[in-house]
């Protein structure tokens, strides 16, 4: 059964998430599942499960879902953001885009619109503390969200993306999680002819040396988006967390505890998940102090 508890740190959340994903992986398509307990709902714990549940057309039969925040955020329902009039509420539901059969330009326009709409949702609906937005600044959110979304457009070849954000007033932080079901970091580099062994090797080369699937006028071009996102978030002012999960590897970088790779022994995520967590700074954050 699914269990979502209040975990003390992100590594504990990843362990819990992995347990839930392994459980869902074993279920036949179209079957039903129950929820053991729900003590906390946060983007990283929810979004990967939603992706699997929808892909495998699983059905939640548990009544607990109706009594919890899961119902408010419309777990695990699919919503196309352009048709969803329920977005302008304080509990913004999980957002799902489906790209099947669409042209590249059409996908790009839709992602562009997603950025604009989601940035407004963060400012107006999700982050209820206006001081939080003033200090972190629209620019910071816009910047990191822009990098995440453009990476999906450029590299993922995804059919589905899921996006969810949550503001925790008690903890003074905002967490955003974006997942796609595309080719993943390994697939993207291999498709571009780069030499990589496995997911962990792909992740290390992207993070450590800027290896990218991009080319510019025939030459391999180094990637800088993830590098800048990490600089923007994991400094001592924002004190945030950056996580990327693809294949059988996770990389977690926190301002507090540094860098860690987590390797899955018997699980593989097809696609890429990115999570960012930003804490309220004590003074107005200047992104360009770090992104240069």
């Amino acid at each position: 059964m699914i269990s979502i508890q209040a975990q003390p740190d992100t590594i504990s959340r990843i362990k819990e998430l992995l347990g839930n994903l392994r459980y869902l992986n074993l279920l036949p398509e179209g079957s039903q599942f129950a929820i053991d307990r729900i003590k906390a709902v946060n983007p990283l714990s929810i979004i990967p499960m939603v992706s699997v549940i929808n892909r495998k057309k699983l059905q939640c039969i548990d009544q607990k879902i109706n009594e919890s925040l899961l119902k408010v955020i419309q777990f695990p329902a699919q919503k196309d953001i352009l048709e969803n009039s329920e977005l302008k509420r304080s509990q913004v539901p999980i957002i799902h885009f489906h790209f099947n059969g669409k042209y590249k330009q059409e996908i790009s326009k839709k992602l562009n619109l997603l950025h604009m709409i989601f940035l407004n949702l963060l400012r107006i609906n999700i982050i209820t503390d206006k001081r939080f937005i003033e200090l972190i600044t629209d620019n910071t959110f816009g910047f990191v969200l822009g990098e995440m979304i453009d990476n999906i457009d450029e590299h993922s070849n995804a059919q589905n993306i899921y996006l969810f954000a949550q503001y925790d007033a008690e903890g003074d932080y905002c967490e955003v999680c974006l997942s796609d079901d595309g080719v993943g970091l390994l697939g993207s580099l291999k498709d571009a002819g780069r030499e990589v062994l496995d997911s962990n090797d792909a992740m290390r080369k992207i993070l450590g040396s800027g290896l990218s699937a991009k080319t510019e006028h025939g030459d391999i071009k180094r990637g800088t988006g993830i590098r800048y996102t990490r600089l923007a978030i994991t400094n001592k002012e924002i004190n945030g967390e950056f996580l990327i999960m693809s294949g059988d590897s996770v990389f977690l970088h926190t301002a507090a505890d540094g860098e860690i790779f987590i390797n899955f022994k018997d699980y593989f995520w097809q696609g890429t998940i990115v999570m960012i967590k930003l804490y309220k700074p004590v003074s107005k954050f200047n992104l360009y102090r770090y992104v240069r």
Partner: protein
Amino acid sequence: MSDKIININQLFSSQSLITRQIARDLYGLIDQMPEDSIILDFSGIDFASRSFFDEFNSYETQLNLSGKKVRIINLNDNLAPLYKLVGENSKKRRSISYKSVANAKVISI
């Protein structure tokens, strides 16, 4: 020939320019124009990503070779420093340093 002014907000019906694909589309449009002096007016654009500017900058050489001069105006206070940063970094991309992750802790679960 006089300047051709393009209002980017109206052209893409958007206040955000995020993807590299949008930059490619913009370059494609400019490349087709008969004018050789083009002004891109960013009035009404709230946000443009680093990736968008980086991609657009990558066409600078092609535009120069085809005799086209492109100028950007009315960037807001958030975008002007980003545009400048991207322009500077595009010239020194190879020397951008990456912090090795070789010393990161490793766990298996």
